[in-house]
């Protein structure tokens, strides 16, 4: 089993209880190790992507655009411009002679065609190398077309996803402050770090509206350029998925003094906590009373239903591997609510603080891992005899090949997993996968007969 661990990576894996906590993270991925990480461009693209009335133009060869075409829900209640994949499709001659002219023409063409409220122009590896002046082209087009045209400095090789989050926040920061803040209530918030993959932000907004808090801007799920431009009018920034949008919250704090709170909408406990934190912040009796009422209403009935699932799921083992570590905290709590044990938890881009906190709340023996890869993950799943693995598309075949249940908590999910209703969906999905009869037929669980004795080809 140890043979699967790269020597250079031993410091990035910790087993709670083995020795005092120490985990190395925030490093460049090890060459040759099949990291599950993506690139800077990916980070920027996922954060900005849900802004539905903006044009998102990828300046680069076709791959960068086509692999990110409509890859996640990012549902919109109105325009759907974000679901189209725009590219300058850089060719060899552009690499030799420069791509600025092509970028300029493409921008003009697309802005004329789609009349967006703003345009984001993503830089890719190749653009960083050939040295196109994105800033200058964007400025020129912005002046000609009268809309914000924002360069996103997301050259893929410049780091990992988190550098891309920062570049996305830089770009959005240029929008904030441009709009009129008239008519914004003193009890108002921006929702940062929810991407409305399956409609979560609609649910969360509804909760806030019910307790009497106005939501100014969704950043960025079901996002609109105009809302982001007036986001500085909100009294508070609520930041989920802190890795992705905390930078923007910090910038807004500096520029406008907007305070922020870190929250999570996932799981009963965290959702309720988020609502109470907001009510507390506004120190308004009515808001607090409505919050209590809302939580009471929502939880009523839910516990009974969860108990049903809990009966069958108690003692089952879960493994978690996510992009940013923050989501892992909520997942651990949610699994505990279902009576399940988390035996492995890891992330692509967690920070030191994230991992320290994780180590604190995990049970002894839990494996904590940074920037893992299929070899390690598959060996952990086997070692811990895991019943369900939670991750994204790239983790799915690892679980399935081994005959382990799986829950997509990332781009491809289609059910809301946030809020009180989301907890019900989560429990249902975990239950549906873990309790499926198919596992009794997979080699892992069945001694089998001669027909099942496939080693492989």
């Amino acid at each position, binding site marked *: 089993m140890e043979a699967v661990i790269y020597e250079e990576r031993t410091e990035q894996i910790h087993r709670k209880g083995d020795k005092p906590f120490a985990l190395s993270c925030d490093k460049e991925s090890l060459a040759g*190790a099949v990291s599950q990480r993506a690139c800077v461009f990916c980070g920027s693209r996922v954060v900005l992507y849900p802004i539905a009335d903006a044009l998102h133009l990828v300046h680069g060869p076709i791959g960068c655009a086509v692999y990110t075409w409509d890859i996640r829900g990012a549902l919109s209640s109105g325009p759907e411009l974000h679901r189209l994949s725009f590219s300058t499709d850089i060719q060899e001659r552009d690499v030799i002679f420069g791509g600025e002219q092509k970028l300029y023409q493409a921008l003009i063409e697309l802005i004329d065609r789609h009349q967006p409220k703003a345009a984001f122009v993503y830089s890719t590896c190749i653009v960083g190398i050939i040295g196109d002046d994105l800033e200058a082209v964007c400025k020129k087009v912005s002046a000609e077309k009268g809309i914000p045209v924002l360069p996103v400095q997301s050259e893929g090789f410049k780091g990992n996803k988190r550098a891309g989050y920062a570049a996305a926040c830089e770009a959005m920061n240029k929008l904030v402050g441009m709009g009129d803040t008239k008519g914004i209530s003193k009890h108002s918030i921006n929702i940062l770090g929810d991407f409305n993959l399956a409609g979560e932000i609609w649910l969360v907004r509804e909760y806030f509206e019910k307790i009497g808090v106005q939501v100014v801007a969704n950043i960025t799920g079901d996002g609109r350029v105009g809302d982001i431009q007036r986001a500085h009018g909100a009294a508070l920034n609520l930041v989920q998925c802190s890795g992705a949008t905390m930078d923007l919250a910090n910038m807004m704090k500096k520029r406008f003094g907007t305070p922020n709170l870190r929250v999570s909408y996932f799981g009963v406990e965290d959702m309720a906590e988020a609502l109470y934190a907001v009510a507390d912040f506004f120190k308004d009796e009515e808001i607090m009373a409505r919050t209590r009422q809302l939580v009471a209403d929502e939880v009523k009935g839910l516990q009974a239903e969860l108990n049903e699932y809990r009966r069958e799921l108690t003692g089952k083992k879960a493994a978690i591997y996510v992009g940013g570590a923050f989501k892992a905290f909520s997942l651990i709590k949610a699994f505990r609510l279902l009576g399940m044990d988390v035996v492995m938890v890891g992330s692509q881009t967690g920070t030191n603080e994230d991992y320290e906190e994780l180590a604190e709340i995990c049970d002894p023996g839990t494996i904590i891992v940074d920037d893992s890869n299929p070899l390690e993950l598959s060996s952990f799943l086997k070692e811990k005899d895991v019943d369900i693995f939670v991750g994204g598309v790239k983790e799915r075949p690892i679980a399935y090949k081994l005959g382990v249940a799986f829950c997509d908590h990332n781009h491809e999910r289609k059910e809301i997993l946030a809020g009180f209703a989301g907890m019900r969906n989560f429990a249902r999905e975990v239950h549906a996968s873990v309790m499926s009869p198919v596992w009794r037929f997979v080699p892992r669980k069945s001694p089998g007969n001669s027909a099942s004795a496939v080693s492989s080809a």
Partner: protein
Amino acid sequence: MTTMTYKKKYVSTTNACKLCRPLGAMIAFRGIEGAVPFLHGSQGCATYMRRYIISHFNEPIDIASSSLGEKNAIYGGGANIKQGLSNVINKFQPSLVGIATTCLTETIGDDVHMLLHQFCAEAKGQTLPEMVHVSTPSYDGTHIEGFHGAVRAAVDSLATAGHPSETVNLLPGFISPADIRYLQEIMADFALPTVILPDISDTLDGPALRKYEMIPGGGTTINEIKSMGTAQATIEFGRTVNEKLSSGLLLNDRFDIPCTRLGLPMGLRETDLFFAELETISGKTTPEKYSRERGRYVDSFVDGHKYVFGKRAIVYGEEDFVVGLTALLVEFGIKPVLCASGGKSGKLTAAIAAVSDDILKEQPLVREGMDFFEIAEEAESLAPDLLIGHSKGYPLAKKLNIPLLRVGFPVHDRLGGQRILHLGYRGAQMLFDQIVNSVIEQKQDSSSVGYSYM
């Protein structure tokens, strides 16, 4: 006959109908036994391609990366490619590493041949796997050029001369695992020892396992690839494959092995050509199993012809797939009105004409270098009845409210893309039934009568 030479209308690309070059190379390398596909570039490329490939095959695909960072982009990726290779070799113990470049490493000017040479020299005394390198700048060509380029690179560096054998080289192009299994069956039934390169039939459609395999079992073995230089004949599919990327022509040049280049055996007549070739090579007549498959297929034409005659289809995707589908469709009376691809072989118009112009009164619009925005624009005036191609045409099908028959790659919104059979009489039969039924279903669903018979 009207042939359209198409000049791109727009500077920008919207919803591309192609993928980037390195992706094709990764899939081709995955079809070699014991191989680890390796991308020399930044980490994101490998991850994105893995994700894209996984969503179609529902199988693990590990693609190693040299994970270049900012410093490497400035000073060169030499150290990273070497570290990456040595990690891959130590951990995976591959028999081959298939290395493809990316736009980044092509542009910063890394000399991969030299770096590999250095790596081997520095590893003196160590047993190293085969290393096959293909240049795949993402800004030139599509995944199909990457695919053929990788196959050719493998043949180029491994195939050797030797005692002439009875083996047949079969270069199928990018087809499904189900297609490859069917080809294997056909070759076995003709009693022809065959090397199929690449062979993704197990590596990208494997059984459930007790243990995660570092490298999935299956694939063309290295010895088989070596033996390709001694074969009695080569059959290469793909009417639009560039000569410079043709492994069949390479084998012909270097080892004097006769090469027959055919279209993908899709539909009746393209499949007939393939079987005729097998009869010639083997000196045997087609086994009855296949002539009966063919007979049933023709019989079904008669049963279904009325439902599809004159139906207007837009066919899109990889060029050779578009040619094969067009060949298949015209034989039972469907009228392709647009044959579109993101590829730019320069051969599509001629290839479409070759497989259809004796049946069609009028050639369809044939366009290379197209994206889905342009396809949608053309569709407005073409009034198609159905779309045939991969999943990415779904938004258009939905907008037009017409059926989409999912074939080829990628199929991201349905299960079992890897098990779609496209080739031969058997594959044609399955496609035919689906096409006819989708037309019937469309009519049934839009009728208020609720017919319960055809």
